[in-house]
């Protein structure tokens, strides 16, 4: 019995020494599993208790329990200590969180892509479907069907590139999409389209021989100028996220619409007070629009007595330029990443 008590004391001391010399959580967990497991000395002593009788059995049993309890307590205490010191260690480590150690991984879509997406999204709320159509067109789709006969000034060589003289050409506007759509579909029609257009103009800060246009068309029984004004006002307010924008319809002339308008919006940079961007007018010319000319409808076999509607178009670059006070349209097609990489929204 004397032996057993000594062995218990010895085993306990061993365990307590091991625990106190332990300096990290992992080794503590190992030690803990050793002293709690079936291979531990105390467990072995416990298996021998069965050989003992009466008080002796009771005494040794209580000695073992006492030791176990002691070890458990010390273990718990040690674990607590070690955890705290580890937390403290990690907490004391300095990390310069302002550094960017890894390469940024995000690219960007082109600003024109982003603006077109915004326009398409807004008009989709009004039930306008996006359509994609040809860039290289025949004279008929680009001009004649749009009420621009052979002698119309807009067709003069200085404006249009030709692939075959007076016949095949890169479209000068997206209005050809109106014709392609109306030839295929029956009213009601609500479409929005965007894409590249080409004009034979010299390149400068305000002109590019290639640029983008967006184009909308709605044909139904009762679409009036009041609808044109209302839908475009609501849409532009959404595009610019500014409910204070009002539109002003300015009389204009396009062969394919009658009446025709240039549409001015309240300058969103100065809220109409007048600033450099709006040339101190308080208004910005944003798009062209008008009621589709009855002759255009007849050209695509839609009865102008039954159906009417409006079309509108503009340049996404201009909207971006206004929003960002950019004044050189060439930036969009020079593809300098220092310019393109700024707008991230995907």
């Amino acid at each position, binding site marked *: 019995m004397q032996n057993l008590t000594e062995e218990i004391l010895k085993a306990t001391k061993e365990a307590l020494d091991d625990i106190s010399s332990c300096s990290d959580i992992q080794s503590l967990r190992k030690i803990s599993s050793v002293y709690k497991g079936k291979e531990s000395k105390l467990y072995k002593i416990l298996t021998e208790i069965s050989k003992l009788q009466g008080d002796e059995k009771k005494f040794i049993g209580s000695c073992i329990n006492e030791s176990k309890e002691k070890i458990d307590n010390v273990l718990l205490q040690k674990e607590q200590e070690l955890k705290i010191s580890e937390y403290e260690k990690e907490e004391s480590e300095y990390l310069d969180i302002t550094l960017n150690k890894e*390469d*940024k*991984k*995000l*690219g*960007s*879509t*082109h600003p*024109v892509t982003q603006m077109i997406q915004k326009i*398409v999204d807004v008009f989709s709320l009004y*039930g306008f*479907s*996006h359509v*994609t159509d*040809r*860039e*290289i067109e*025949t004279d008929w789709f680009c001009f004649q069907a749009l009420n621009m006969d052979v*002698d119309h000034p807009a067709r*003069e060589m200085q404006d249009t*590139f*030709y*692939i075959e003289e007076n016949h*095949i050409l*890169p479209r000068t506007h997206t209005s050809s999409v109106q014709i392609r759509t109306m030839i295929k579909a029956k009213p009601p029609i609500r479409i929005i389209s965007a894409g*590249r257009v*080409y004009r034979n103009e010299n390149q400068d800060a305000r002109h590019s*021989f*290639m640029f983008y246009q967006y184009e909308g068309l709605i044909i*139904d029984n*009762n*679409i*009036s*100028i*009041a*609808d044109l*004004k*209302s*839908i475009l006002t*609501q849409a532009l307010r959404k595009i610019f996220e500014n409910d204070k924008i009002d539109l*002003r*319809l*300015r*009389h*204009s*002339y396009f062969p394919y619409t*009658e*009446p025709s*308008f*240039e549409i001015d919006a309240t300058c969103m940079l100065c809220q109409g007070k007048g600033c450099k961007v709006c040339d101190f007018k308080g208004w910005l010319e944003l798009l062209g629009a008008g*009621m589709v000319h009855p*002759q255009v409808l007849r050209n695509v076999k839609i009865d102008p007595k039954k159906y009417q509607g409006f079309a509108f178009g503009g340049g996404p670059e201009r909207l971006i330029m206004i929003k960002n006070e950019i004044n050189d349209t060439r930036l*969009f*097609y*020079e*593809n*300098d*990443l220092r310019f393109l*990489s700024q707008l991230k929204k*995907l």
Partner: protein
Amino acid sequence: MKISLSWISKYTKIPNTIKEKYDLADKFARQIADIDEITHYGEHTKDIVVGKIMKIQNHNNADKLKITHIDIGEKEYIQIVTGATNIYEGMHVPVAKIGVTLPNGLTIEKRDLRGIPSYGMLCSEKELMLSNDHEGIMDLGDIKDIKVGEYLLTYLEDLILDIDNKVISNRGDLFSHEGIAREIAALQKTEYIKPEIKKIKIESEKNIDVKIESKNFCFRYTGIIIKNVKIKESPLKIKRALERLGVQSINNIVDITNYIMFDIGQPLHAFDLDKIGGEGTTIFVRQAMGGEKIKTLDQKERILSQDNYLIATKDKPIAIAGVMGGYDSRVDENTKNILIESATFNPKLIRKSSKGINLRTDASLRYEKRVDPNKTKRALIEAIKMIQNDNAGEIASDIVDVITIKDITKRDTLSFSFDRVEKVIGIKIEKKVVRDILERLNFEVKISKDNIISVKIPTERDDIKEDVDLIEDIGRIYGYDKIPLKNPVYEIIPRKEDILYKTKQSIKTIISACGGYEIKTYSFINEDLLKKAMLDNISKIKIINPNSEDYTTLRSSLIPSILKTVSTNQKNADSFILYEIANVYKESKGEELPREEYELVITAYNKKSETFFSVKNIIEVIKEYLPLKGEISYQDFLKMPYLKNKSAKIYFNEDYFGDIGNIHPEIRENFNINGNITISRIPVNNIIKYLELFPKIKPISKYPEIKIDLNITIDNSVSSKSIIESIYDENLRSKNIVDVYKGKPLEENQTGLTIRLVFENFEGTFKTEDIHSKINKIKESINKKYPNVLFR
């Protein structure tokens, strides 16, 4: 085209204050025609007053100086010493008093000029920035009821509106002050004083012989001979009116023809009769013969084609009809007798003629837009009257008047239901308002009891062809600002999805999320660029009228443009990924139009490291994200512009899908690209073909999965992809290469691969033996196909 508001006041009331004038211009720009530029005429004369020269004395100490005594409405005359030569006693002049600052910055002070004090300055038009070419003191003799001491601005102030011609390009009637005035009167609801149709008594019975050979070109030709013409300076009033529009005064005759053109819109031309064969000459209006020559008023020798039309005598051309007169028949200081021509020509043929010789004039501009033949004779009579009033010549013939078209005075009538107005504009406008607007615009209006409007169209309004043309006039004069906002009311029709657009947008989002920057390059390139990219044998569609040597061809590949973009960006960044989705254009046999196909090109550039896998990875991500249904594989090698051993055709399932490869060093050199560059090209339609519209997901087993790493060594005869493909087991959930090793102890041509196999069992937990036998079977099947593969 420039319009002077004070000229307009000849026809209708114009507001007095400058602010009201600007307000009118603002309304004008919205309801009549856009204005390119507004000039505030006289704004620099703010402090200048009107003075009258009461007395002129010589200066004793200076021959060139004069001492003047000027009445400026003050108690005493002021004394001003001047060097001017055009002054006379009784002359009204602009005076800058002491303290006044002139437009050039000079402030007037009291000065002593050779011993005589001077208390101000008499001003020239140039000094007041009213005109460019007048050195002498401005003579205010033309101003009616002028008062000394008044500000000069009271008499001079004007707004000059430079109107955007495009907006009125279908409105020939608006290329005149009388036409614009009618619109302004309708806008302001002010009275419009109709131009007077003047009568003239002609006693001469002499006829002018006019032969119109091109009847489709010349609609009406009127003319008259004036003899004993006195060529002199124009009256101040006319000179000043023209100057405001930026037109230089030439002489009284030429100025009268110009004045009437701006006033009425009818171009006139005066020939020196003695230079075109004198009395009894015959005037021909005919098509030019190819190669015919004429020296025009601008002293340029013009070589003509059959697109041009001429006014000619029987032996030579004397004017390019409707465009510009001939230099040799011009009116000059020695002219004694003249022929004045007032004619109307075919607008389309005038455009062709003026375009053909690249010469646009104020006359051709008006003819292009159409001049109403009813104005022709009226304008001629106006010219005769003005010459008579100026005592500048005598009538020496009857008016010749040849008309080649029928019924020039006939007016069409257009009828439509009143409801149409509301249906198009979207609001109700009262009948009497509609009637008032139309009548002010010179239409004759009847509205019947059953609401039918009948409108008689004046001859100058050939732009009115159907009801909407009139509704436009009603709408704009009524004012679109009065239309309230509303919510649209229409049937809901579900939108149709544009798969192409949607896919393009998704691809852009994915690549950008992977670090790619979208670029947009021009659709036109040149052959040089194609050659630099070694793509010179692909199809070329040419622009027949390019405006730059750099952009002559529709591109059939995006690669040259993207290489150019890499080249320009490499100086600012060490590595980047670029992509573009755009059309390429290809000839299509038997089709009218070229084929257009959207292509995706992705490129990765890195100054130091390999770029191939950045691009390949993006393709794999696109496949997973869209997603595409099937398997991508890489086979064969590519030719130029790719580097043979570092390139492949991409296959999707069994079909060709696109290309990927590193760019050949020679091409990198051509584009000055220093570094690694990989390009992949995929037609967007190939991607759309495999879109998986309803991607599926599988459940996962609740029993533990087993991961086994297979370490193998392969040589260059086998691709890692084919090894992966040869691995099959029904319980295999995934098989991926997790590590690639090259180097010792492996031979040079060997590669070590670690393939992680994940087994999954829905029935129960795997037994160790099962896994062992599965692995063995897999090894066997690999070895059967690829005996050289070693297992470690």
